[in-house]
């Protein structure tokens, strides 16, 4: 597989662009800051369409559900949102996320 092909196939920003070209509504969620031991680094993306299909991640799987729900709102309203998650609560602990972490996720519509 060539560099360009693997880029297009797995990369969430390439996927977002492809979805756009297919006429879908798309939102991008980005980790903009982290405190403590956050599972995904600053700059990580989760992209989703208006049906709730998503690719990529902003955490180890704990907050993605919440992000997708909020993103559906962002897609319909067009208003960007800043989400904050503490990953030290019980839910985080149960799914095995590192304790003491906190992340801020910016969710915006493309276009």
């Amino acid at each position, binding site marked *: 597989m060539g560099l*360009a092909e693997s*880029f297009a196939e797995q*990369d969430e*920003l*390439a996927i*977002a*662009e492809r979805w*756009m070209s297919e006429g879908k509504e798309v939102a*991008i969620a*980005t980790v*903009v*800051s982290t405190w403590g031991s956050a599972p995904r*680094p*600053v*700059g990580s993306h989760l992209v989703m369409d208006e049906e709730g299909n998503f690719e990529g991640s902003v955490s180890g799987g704990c907050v993605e559900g919440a992000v997708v729900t909020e993103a559906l709102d962002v897609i319909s309203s067009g208003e*960007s949102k*800043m989400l904050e998650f503490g990953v030290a609560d019980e839910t985080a602990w149960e799914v095995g996320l590192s304790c003491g972490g906190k992340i801020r996720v*910016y969710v*915006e*519509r*493309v*276009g």
Partner: protein
Amino acid sequence: MDPLTLKNLNEARNARKAAIVVTNLTDGQDRLVIEGESVEGELAEALSKAFLNGKSTTIEAGGCEYFLNVHVPPPRIVVIGAVHISQALALIAKTSGYALEVIDPRTAFATPERFGETELFADWPEDVLANRPLDAYCALAAVTHDPKIDDYPLAAALEAGCFYVGALGSRKTHAKRLDRLKEEGIPQEALDCIHSPIGLDIGAASPQEIAVAIMGEIIQAFRSRGLG
């Protein structure tokens, strides 16, 4: 995000250019800055710092909060010569998080037995690089001592603006090499960019130590690129 920002960002990433998406978190506006573009104003310093360390970050400027999402192409180290130094360098590069490939047309040297999982091309650099072109986010280390093998990729690396170009050899060997490359029409200021003797001056003696010195010099060059 502006769809055009997304499109241009993907284009830059696909072309292995470094780019930063600057998002004003206060009003939601964004723009794309490609490395090398001149930037004016309050963000200039933060942007150039972010290009160098590759770290995405939020900053405050003019009463607004900005997010800089930095996309720097993963650096590639291209080693010309499947020699003892290259075997050690392959391991050190992997530990340091740099992708590395080895090119050597001498099939006795370029064997999977000697290089394990390292990406290896037992072919002439001319042929290999034709399909895998060098760019500004490549480092090239030529370590065969053989002009037939080393000269072409050195010239190609200078032309592609590789962030690091190093060549193994004594001062005498290097002086002769510079004469040959000059005859090929490579300008003096480009030739001055070749690191030779190769590697940081740490008194390295063994092939493994020389590999450490080369890796250190590559990291130094990567983290200070464009600073002269």
